[in-house]
């Protein structure tokens, strides 16, 4: 069994209004952060013998459902 971590973000250049709100508040709190983006972290287990298969499945699931390629980008990481 492999645990797949898929992280989805809005693409660079697509405005993230929720991220902007969080950044405003963090700055009000004294944390001088920039470029804050909110993403989504999805974990799932797949029954695959080789880690390569799990990564390929993760990418396929991201491309077909978990991320919207029009406005989002994603990364996939497998931890056995």
């Amino acid at each position: 069994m492999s645990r797949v971590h898929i992280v989805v973000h809005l693409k660079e250049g697509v405005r993230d209004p929720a991220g902007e709100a969080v950044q405003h508040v963090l700055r009000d709190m004294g944390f001088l952060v920039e470029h804050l983006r909110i993403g989504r972290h999805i974990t799932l287990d797949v029954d695959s013998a080789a880690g390569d298969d799990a990564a390929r499945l993760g990418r396929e699931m991201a491309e077909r459902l978990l991320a919207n390629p029009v406005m989002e980008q994603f990364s996939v990481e497998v931890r056995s």
Partner: protein
Amino acid sequence: MKVAVVTFPGSNCDRDTLRALSRLPVEAVPVWHRDTHLGGASAVILPGGFAYGDYLRAGALAAHSPVMGTVRELVNAGGRVLGICNGFQILTESGLLPGALAMNVSRRFQCEWVQVQVQECLPGLRFAAGERFSLPIANGEGRYIPDPQRPLGRDAVAFLSYRDGAGRPHNPNGSWREVAGVASADGRVIGLMPHPERASAAWLGGEDGLRFLRVWTGGDGVPA
């Protein structure tokens, strides 16, 4: 003409849409999202609401409902589909229309009346270029994002745009080029954020939505 209205788990404008259609000379039938038939309808409406609770992304899960395969077959066979609000989100998520709908730049769920204007005539439908409709919007994710791989102007067009009371471009939510609705170039697939069914009687605040639905179901824009 027979029009199917799909109910997804979380749809909440399905019955309003059926009721609005009852004021037009069409037969309207409800369809469940797990159905793989459309009750013999030649046109289908994906209504507003929060299908699957908007989990993951608005429209993302509903785009994979069994009925969507049937909707795709209907369009390929020459039928028509209209996606209203959440229905528009389902159409972009399913790839039947290009682009995506993202969170409004205001970060608010915007519930207000807007003016929209027809930007492009569509084959087989008597929408007039420049024709305006006063309709309510009610959404949190209505900001149209174009798809660089499928730019409007090829297989789809910017069908409706937001206008202010004087007819000038107006942008309630940060939508790309004030886009309020998109249609396939052949007119078979239309998605719009405003709710025509919520403007289908004078006591609701206006009848422009009924006029919109009348034209979409094959009539003209003249009140009956």
